[in-house]
């Protein structure tokens, strides 16, 4: 049986909007095991992105417990938390969020810089990644010179370069046409088969079906699994 990767225990996030407290995530209980491919579904504003951000430690839960690889994230200091997500988590965004000023090569390389990987090793890793995604020919181009699908490929390559255990994808195909969409989703299931845990947020039933588990959210609550 696979190990537990993370678990949420009545995790809640509320924010103050003016004088009202708004609950974005309401008592979420969720266990994720290594090797799972989870699709979060729900209408806009249901809390998919918030949940992903909280799991990815960009945001934090305001209540409840969050354990990642056995470590209690909710009681961690910022520095340790940052170390944790740097090591284990990769992000893929709907709007790709590549750094416009950097080339494809440099974009993919950046996470390694922050992990203080040695130069020669970096070169080898990036070259492998480019090879694997068939974008060697584009390594010196800047993001604006690529199509959306290619940009997202670079985004995924960048997320994978640090060999994360978990990939968080927030509507990764939202800006893509159906052909590109399919390619990206195929890639995700391929990665999943290689052992990477994936949590994606999506609107599309079709994309959700690539996952091994579908979680429906509504108004910050898990309504069905």
């Amino acid at each position: 049986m696979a190990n537990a990767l993370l678990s949420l225990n009545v995790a809640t996030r509320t924010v103050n909007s003016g004088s009202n407290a708004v609950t974005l995530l309401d008592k979420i209980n969720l266990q994720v095991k290594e090797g799972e491919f989870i699709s979060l579904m729900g209408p806009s504003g249901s809390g998919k992105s918030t949940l992903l951000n909280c799991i990815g430690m960009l945001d934090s839960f305001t209540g409840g417990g969050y354990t990642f690889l056995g470590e209690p994230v909710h009681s961690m200091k910022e520095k340790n938390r940052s170390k944790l997500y740097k090591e284990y988590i990769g992000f893929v965004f709907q709007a790709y969020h590549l750094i416009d000023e950097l080339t494809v090569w440099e974009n993919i390389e950046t996470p390694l810089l922050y992990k203080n990987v040695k130069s020669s090793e970096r070169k080898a890793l990036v070259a492998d990644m480019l090879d694997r995604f068939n974008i060697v020919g584009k390594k010196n181009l800047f993001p604006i010179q690529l199509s959306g699908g290619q940009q997202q490929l670079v985004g995924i390559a960048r997320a994978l370069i640090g060999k994360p255990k978990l990939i968080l994808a927030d509507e990764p195909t939202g800006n893509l046409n159906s052909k590109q969409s399919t390619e990206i989703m195929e890639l995700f299931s391929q990665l999943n088969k290689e052992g990477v845990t994936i949590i994606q947020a999506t609107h599309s039933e079709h994309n959700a079906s690539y996952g091994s588990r579908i979680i429906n959210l509504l108004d910050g609550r898990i309504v069905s699994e």
Partner: protein
Amino acid sequence: MIKNYFKIAWRNIMKHKVFSLINVIGLTIGLSASFVIGLMIFYDSTFDTFHKDGDRIYRVVTDFKTPDGEFYNPGVTLALKSAIEDDLNFEAISEFYRERPMKVENRANDKEFKLPKFVIFADQDYFKIFDYKFIAGNNDNALSNPNEVILTKERALKYFPNTQVSEIIGKTLVYNDSVNTKVTGIVENFEGRTDIVFQEFISHPTLLQTRLRDNIIGKNWNNTNSSSQLFVKLNPNADISSINSRFKNLSDEHADEEDKKYGEERIFQLQPLSDIHFNENYGIYDWSSGQASKSLLKNLVLVALFLLLLGCINFINLNTAQATQRAKEIGIRKTLGSSRKQLIGQFMGETLLLVLVSAALSLLLSRWLIGVFSDFVPEGLSFELFKAPVLVIGAIILLIIVTFLSGFYPAIILSRFNTVSVLKNHLGVGDKKVGLRKFLTVFQFTIAQVFIIATLLVGKQINYLLNKDMGFKTDAIVSVYKPIEENSLEKIELYAEKLASIPEIKGVSLGGPPPASQSSNTTDMRRMIDTEEIYGEMQLLAGDTNYLDLFEIELLAGRVHRNDTIRELVINEAARKFYRFKSPEDAIGKTLLFENEYLPIVGVMGDFHQRSLKSEIKPMTLRGDWYREMWSYFQAAHIVFKSDSPENLKRSLTKIENAYKDVYPKSNIRLEFVDETVEKFYKREQKISKLLNWATGLSILISCLGLLGLVIYTTNRRVKEIGVRKVLGASLLQINTLLCKEFLILVAIAFIVASPIAWYGINSWLQDFTYKTNISFWVFLISGCAMILFALIVISAKTLQAANANPVNSLRSE
């Protein structure tokens, strides 16, 4: 990692070319100014730092405290040395006398050199105080006997060309035809920067063979000549306070009865060697090389500081304004694992890169600036000085400070962004810092505004100084001086005769300097009214009977002196009032007591300015050439032209020069226009004015560039708003007004802040002048309008373009 930072920094710089250019220009100007001024400070502060035990070397100088104020003399009485010789606080005491010989001859080689500079009559302790390296002869008993001379290598090679230094020893030099000296030593010239510029050291006892014989033998306590210099080297454990009290006792003991009566006091002071280069009270030996002025340096430092600050402010403003554009990158980097520290490091790296680019440009620019500011930059200063390690380290520290000053705040702001909101495009982070940017912009424009007002007012004052009636004719008059070494009166009279025959010349008068000049000749005169005595200083002006006429100075009563040598006085109005004569007529026929002689007043002339308008008109008297048998005061021929049209002037000047060559074939003519002499009074003010012009121009440039950057940024952000407004029917003018308004308000606030500061500064500057222009309201108004106009032009350049754009383009996207 670093490479990555620099790469992205470079790409960012190139991507925002306009902003980068604005930043680089601002920083480059500030850094160039700092570099040049840093060089100057380094240059001036490294004078005479190389002497062995330099901190124990002092010059003794004399201060005079009188009811009229303090006066400073770099010399001391000749009697002082022997009075302090027994004091154990001194390791060495050297007196020397500065005396410029008329000529020196190397008769063996039949060579003659006129008026050698930097010749002193020094005693044997001189070489114990200053450590010269002897390359021929030696230091033992140097200069102890009469008729000995030690030369520097430079001088020795000049007097004895193509001769080995060792062979020069024992050769003879003849000063002023009669003083024979034997060369006993040759020393290396000082290599470092120094004010101890002497080249020829004649042994002190030789003075007895010169015109100064009586002074040397007499050693009068009450005679202080600035040429009589005294240097001391203190013992390592010397007690300075005991030296000072010794000096005090000596001056008390030898105080003159008269001085006591008029409340005058003499104070001997120890002036540290390091102070000589800076202290304008006592001056330096080579006056042509210009002395360092601490106040000028201070002003220059302020200017550099302001320019640098303005550059940094542009940087802060533009970078915080641009923050939103960088926000996305920051958000991504954070999700990729960058810590805040790393982000700050990255932005500081970018700042550093810009600063380095600016610094490189500044180095190139400084070379050029040294030329432009030759008025301020000491002559010997060259760009090569920049190799000095102190300066290199100083420059590096400056660059680091500038990097921190401009980069740190934006880096803090940028790295603080919240990742999630940035990635979700919930921005507006840059807008939160609007208040700070406004403050900084106001600050910039305040500085620029102060500079503008100051420039206008200083210009106004200079204009007033130059155009105020001096009280005598200054235009179309030229003064021709006779050669210094020429004593004969006949020759200058012959010259005057030759001049009189030139048709373009209206008149000639022989005399001392023109009515207003830098030189002064002062004595004391007194008037006895019954038993009461009126005692005061009287300026002396030498001139022939034609002098007043030529300079068109009004004679209020009486007549001028009857001939050139008769001892009669023509006093001015100020003197008339000072000595309490009721009217000009009342003074005629009365006498003033000068030394032991009652001199008759035969005329009263109108007041005119004898010096710059900084000082008041002082009591003065015109007199003839009283001591003609010994020494003639008639040094110059003043010439007035019939017309001052350029052709006439040119023709006349050629004739004047030809006549001079006829009379003085061996000498070069020294000729000064009187109006130029007057202008020279205000050299310092002109310098300040030039400095202000530059400071103003540059600060306006930097501030306006910064403003342009902000305008470009805000207008770009409001493109959509402009589009919507245009669709709704707003006119070009309305939109432009809308866009300009917020910036013009800032400029206006700056004006309100700047006005009182500028008023205060200029008002205190004007206190130096006895005669001053008024600080007019319209100057403020004009400068305010000018600033607003500049700003408006800069702002409109961008806003009009934005307002003109087709709204379809801006509204189509999204």
